[in-house]
C-alpha cells in the first residue's frame, strides 16, 4: 500500500467528475481514498446494470405495447442457461465487492504500532479528547461560537488537533449512551460505547479543518454534538500537544472546564433554560427542588456544598422544572482543583441579593 502523501494538484487531477458530483471533495486519508475508489466502482456497476435492466424493461414495454388486434406472441417461459448466467455473473461481481470492502475495512481499523494515540470520550452532547501525555483540550481548543455554521446553539465546538502524514489512533469510549465518532473526510466512523473502548486510525494527508459528527442518535442535541478535526504539520502538533494548559486563575479555569468537561452542553451562562438550569445568578438565589426542601445559596458553605454535591451526586436534589439528566462525575473525572475552579466560575457569574428569586 502506498503511504506517500500526494500533493494538492495531484489529488485534484485525480478526481473524476462523477466523484466530484457525489463527494465534492477527495477523502483526506489513503484508505478513505481507497474506499472512495470502491464506492465509484460500485457506482459504475450500479449505473451499468441499472441502464441495462431498466432500459430493456422499458424498451420491451414500449416495443410490445398493446395494440388492437395484436395478440401476445409466444415466447419461452424459462431458459435455464440464461437464468443461471444472470445469477452467477452478479454473484461474481459481489464476491469481488465483498473482498475489496473487507480488505479496506481491516486497513481502516487495524492501526500501526507507532500511531499517535488520542483518547476520545463521548458524552451527551460533547466530545472531549486527551493526548497520550495527558494533555486535555485547552481553552484555545474551541471554535468561536460567533462563527455560526448552521448547527444551532452557537456553542463552541471542541477542536481536536492531529498531525498530518502521521498515523493517529483514536481510542473511544462514552460516559452515558452510545455515540458514534464520525470523520466524513476519513470516510470513517465507529460507535462509541459506555462499556468498552473501540478504536480506528487515520493518517490525514493535508492540513486544514475537517468536520467530526456524532452519527448515533443520542437525544436532544444530537445534531449539535460536533467537533473539528484540525490537521496541522507534525512539528506544530508536537508543540501543541506539549503546551501547558493549567490555568492559575480559578474563574478562568472554571470557564475552561465548563467547555472541556461538557457542562456547556446543558448549562448556559446567559439565563436561558437548556437541558439543565442556567448557571447565571446562582449564587445568592434560593433553589426549588422536586425531591428536597428549598435551599438558600446565600453563604459560601451552602453554595460550595451544593455545587460539590451537584457534580458528584446530582440526583440528590433535582431542580424544579428539570429531569434527572445530569451524569454523576467521579473524583477522577473532576478533581478537587478543578471543582474549585467550577465553583469560583459559577460564583463569578453574578450574585442575587440575599433572599432574591
Amino acid at each position: 500500500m502506498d503511504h506517500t502523501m500526494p500533493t494538492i494538484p495531484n489529488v485534484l487531477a485525480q478526481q473524476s467528475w462523477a466523484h466530484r458530483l457525489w463527494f465534492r471533495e477527495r477523502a483526506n486519508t489513503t484508505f478513505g481514498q481507497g474506499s472512495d475508489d470502491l464506492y465509484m466502482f460500485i457506482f459504475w456497476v450500479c449505473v451499468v446494470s441499472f441502464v441495462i435492466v431498466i432500459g430493456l424493461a422499458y424498451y420491451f414495454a414500449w416495443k410490445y405495447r398493446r395494440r388492437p388486434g395484436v395478440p401476445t406472441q409466444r415466447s419461452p417461459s424459462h431458459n435455464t442457461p440464461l437464468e443461471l448466467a444472470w445469477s452467477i455473473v452478479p454473484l461474481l461481481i459481489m464476491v469481488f465487492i465483498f473482498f475489496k470492502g473487507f480488505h479496506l475495512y481491516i486497513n481502516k481499523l487495524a492501526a500501526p504500532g507507532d500511531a499517535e494515540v488520542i483518547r476520545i470520550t463521548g458524552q451527551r452532547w460533547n466530545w472531549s479528547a486527551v493526548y497520550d501525555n495527558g494533555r486535555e483540550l485547552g481553552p484555545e481548543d474551541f471554535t468561536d461560537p460567533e462563527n455560526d455554521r448552521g448547527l444551532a446553539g452557537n456553542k463552541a465546538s471542541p477542536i481536536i488537533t492531529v498531525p498530518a502524514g502521521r498515523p493517529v489512533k483514536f481510542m473511544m469510549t462514552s460516559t452515558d449512551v452510545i455515540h458514534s465518532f464520525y470523520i466524513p473526510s476519513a470516510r470513517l466512523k465507529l460507535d462509541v460505547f459506555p462499556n468498552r473502548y473501540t478504536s480506528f486510525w487515520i493518517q490525514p494527508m493535508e492540513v486544514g479543518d475537517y468536520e467530526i459528527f456524532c452519527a448515533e442518535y443520542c437525544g436532544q442535541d444530537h445534531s449539535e454534538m460536533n467537533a473539528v478535526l484540525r490537521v496541522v504539520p507534525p512539528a506544530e502538533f508536537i508543540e501543541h500537544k506539549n503546551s501547558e494548559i493549567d490555568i492559575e486563575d480559578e474563574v478562568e479555569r472554571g470557564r475552561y472546564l465548563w467547555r472541556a468537561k461538557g457542562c456547556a452542553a446543558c448549562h448556559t451562562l446567559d439565563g436561558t433554560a437548556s437541558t439543565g438550569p442556567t448557571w447565571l445568578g446562582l449564587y445568592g438565589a434560593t433553589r426549588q427542588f422536586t425531591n428536597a426542601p428549598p435551599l438558600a445559596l446565600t453563604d459560601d458553605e451552602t453554595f460550595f456544598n451544593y455545587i460539590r454535591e451537584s457534580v458528584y451526586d446530582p440526583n440528590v436534589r433535582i431542580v424544579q422544572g428539570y429531569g434527572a439528566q445530569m451524569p454523576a462525575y467521579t473524583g477522577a473525572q473532576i478533581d478537587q482543583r478543578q471543582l474549585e475552579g467550577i465553583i469560583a466560575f459559577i460564583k463569578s457569574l453574578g450574585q442575587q441579593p440575599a433572599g432574591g428569586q
Partner: protein
Amino acid sequence: MATISGSSGHGVPHHGGHGHGHDHDVSYLHPKGGFAAVVWDWMTTVDHKKIGVMYLVAILFMFFLGGVAALAVRMELFYPTHVDAAGAVTGQLLNVGETWAKGNETYNRIFTLHGIIMVFLFIVPSVPASLGNFLLPLMIGAKDVAFPRLNLASWYVYLFGSVFAIVSIIQGGVDTGWTFYTPYSTMTDAQHWNVVWMITAAFILGFSSIFTGLNFVVTVHKLRAPGMGWFDMPLFVWGIYATAIIQVLATPVIGITLLLLIFERLFHIGIFDPRMGGDPVLFQHFFWFYSHPVVYVMILPGFAIISEVITTHARKNIFGYRAVAFSSIAIAGIAFIVWGHHMFTSQGEVASVIFSALTFLVAVPTAVKVFNWTATLYKGSIAFTTPMLYALGFLFTFSIGGLTGLFLGALATDLHLHDTYFVVAHFHYVMMGGTVIAFIGGIHHWWPKMFGKMYSELWAKIGFFLVFIGFNMTFFPQFILGTQGMPRRYATYLDQYTFLHQLSTIGSLVLAVGLFTHLFVFVHSLVAGKKAPPNPWGSLTLEWTHAASPPIEHNFHHEPLVTHGAYPYDDVLPAQTKPGEFILPPPIPGKRSGH
C-alpha cells in the same frame, strides 16, 4: 374447449346478482339492514374480505398520520437552525416559542413518531393484512382463511396495540427512534410511562402479525382448490406465504426483546444497561434479529403484487415461475442470517466480515426477480394502465433501492455511509419505492374487484406521475447528502447541505400532492365510479375468472376446479383477448399448461 371455469360453460363467470337471486349470491358489500346493523355486521364479521377492507382503511389512516409526521420532519429541515449572538433562533419550524433545544426535542419526537407509525402500524401489516387477507382465499379458490375468528382477533389486537401507541403519543410521544436502542431508551423520559406504552404497543402489534401469518400458512397448505398444486399457485400467494413464515418465526423474538426492554426500564434488571453489567449491543442483536427479517415482511408482498400486475397487464406468462417462487423462499431463509449488517459499526470485526459476506448472498435472489420481471415483458402485450405504470415505476425505484444496498453491504464504504442520509435514502427507496409503490399499484389493480367500481384512469395516472417524480425528488438528493457526510436524525445541519435538503423537502410536497390525488381517485370511484366487470384486466387468476366484482359473500358459487397454472396467457386464443372473455384450448391430457 372451456376449461378455465368450473362453474359456467363458456368461461365467463356468473356475476353475483345484486338484489336478486339467492341470498348467498349477494355481494359481500351488500348492507344487512340499517346503519347500526351494518356497523355490528362489520365489527363482528369473520369474512376475510371485510377484515381485509377494515385493515385497508386502518392502515391507510396510519399511513396518513405517519406521512404528516414525515412532512413535519421535511419542513423542519428546509432551513438549518441558526442562533445569533443575541440568542434569536431562525430556521426552526418546530420551535414552539421556547429554546432551540426544545425545538430539537420536538423534532426528535416527530421523526420517532414517523418511524414507529410507518414501521409497526403501517408497513408491516400493510399488504398482507389488507390485500393479502382479501385476495389469498380468492386466489386459491377457498371460501375463507383457515381460521376466520383468529383473523378477526388479529384485527382487534391491531386496534388494541394502536390504542397504546396513541396513548403514548398523547402523553408527548417518545424520542427513542423507532429502533429503541439501549441504553438511551432505558434512560430517556425516566419519570414518564410513555416509552413503556409505546413499547407495549409494538409488543401487542406483534401478536396481530403472528395471527395473520399463522392463518396464511395454514390456509395455503390446507385450503387450495382441487387441482391447484404448489406450482399452480399465483406468485402473489407464494410471496404472502413466504412473508407469513417470517412473521411467525421472527415476531416472537421482538416480543421477548421488547418485554426485556420494559423490565429493564421498570426494574433495572441489567441485561442491556452497562451500568449494571449489561451490554447495549446485545439489544441491537436481538432487535435486528427480528427487524432484518421484517424488512422482507415489508418487501416480499411488494414483489408478490408486482408479479401479478406485470403478468396481467402484459398478458404474459411469468418468465421463470419457479425461480420467482423459490427466490421468495430463499430470501425468507437468508433474511434470518444477515441481521448483523445493521451493526457494522458496533459489533466485532469477525462478525462484520461474516455478515457482509452473507448480505451479498441475499442480493442474488432479489436481482433474479427483477431480471424475471423484465424478461416477462418480452413479447408481451403491455397495457399502460395505472397498475402497470406502478409496476414499471417499481422496477425503477426498487432497482435503485436494491443496488444502493451494495454500497452498504461492502464494509469499507459502510463505515462512511452508515447512519447517514445515504441509508435513509436507501431504505426509503426499498420500503417506499418498493413496497408502497407496489401497494398503491396493487390497490388500483384489485380496486375493481374489492369494491366493484372502476376508477378514473386519467386522474390515477396523474397521481402516479406526481408520486413518482415527488418520490425521486425527495429521496435521490438524500443519497448525495449521505455521501457528503450528512448524518441522519439531525434536527439541523451545516449550511453546506441546505440546497439538497430544500430539494428534498420540495419533492416531499409533490409526493404528498400525488398521494392526495390517489385518495381523491378512490373516493371519487366509490361515489361515482363506473360499475366494474368481473374481469376488467383480462387476468387469468381465480379471483378474476371465477368471482364476481365485488365477490359474493362466500366468494364462489362452486368450488373452482383448477386445471392449469396461474398465467397461461400464451394459451389464450388470440380471437378472445377482449377483456373479460377468455377461452382456453383443451389441455393436453396428463400435461399441465401455464409454466
